């Protein structure tokens, strides 16, 4: 097995393991633990992006997700001063229903994948560096880029309005 294949299995296992620990950690139900494992998931997913030659996106993934978004999460957890979630009685119906429906969805997705003929283009020569991505972003996708900047402005104004002290 070649080195990239081994690395794929390592990063994939790490991503899924940390993902499980975000959702259902048997040792702690503290939101901070979930947030920390989400950071690990995101970092190992950046490794997967590297294997797919998406170098710019791997960097953005770490900077924006592991940096900005997770710091925001931790700030809010600190602000809310959440105690360890009390052991409430888990509703058995909701738990089993959720498990069954998610299992059914994953079964359908995997069967679809089996039934589809995925043939990759043979010479894989794509490079997702900053230059290539910027070239596409500022030529073909310049309108969505500008629209996204407006969206960010709207989100910023909305957040400032929402966090005012006397929310009407």
């Amino acid at each position: 097995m070649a080195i990239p294949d081994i690395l794929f299995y390592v990063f994939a296992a790490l991503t899924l393991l940390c993902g499980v620990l975000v959702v259902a950690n048997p040792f702690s139900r503290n939101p901070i633990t979930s947030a920390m494992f989400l950071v690990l998931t995101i970092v190992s997913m950046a490794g997967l992006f590297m294997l797919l030659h998406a170098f710019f996106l791997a960097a953005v993934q770490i900077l924006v997700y592991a940096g900005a978004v997770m710091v925001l999460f931790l700030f809010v957890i600190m602000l809310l001063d959440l105690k360890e979630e009390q052991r409430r009685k888990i509703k058995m119906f909701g738990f089993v229903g959720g498990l069954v429906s998610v299992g059914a969805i994953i079964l359908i997705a995997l069967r679809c994948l089996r039934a589809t003929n995925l043939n990759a283009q043979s010479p894989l020569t794509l490079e997702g560096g900053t230059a290539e991505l910027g070239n596409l972003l500022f030529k073909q996708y310049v309108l969505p880029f500008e629209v996204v900047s407006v969206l960010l402005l709207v989100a910023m104004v909305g957040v400032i309005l929402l966090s005012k002290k006397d929310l009407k």
Partner: protein
Amino acid sequence: MNVGLEQYLVVSFLLFALGLLGVVVRRNLLVIYMSLELMLNAANLALVAFSWFNNKLDGQVLVFFIITVAAAEVAVGLALIVALYRKRQSAHVEDLTTMKL
């Protein structure tokens, strides 16, 4: 076994299912939000894999936009959670049943 598009898609599906499970099963608003992020990340992984195995860069541009929109969504959502917590002193979905008939 050679790693192809299929393996990446399986990882992406499993991650998406994990996120969905978290949204359905967990009762803490913040953890539900983190599970939503997990689902968005699974979609990103699938898009990057498609982009690499089809020799087209458009998928990666889409992922770039998704990351931006996710950041905006997280900011607004967390502001809502903080505002809600100020009013109700709880971040637990079972305490938020005002709209229940």
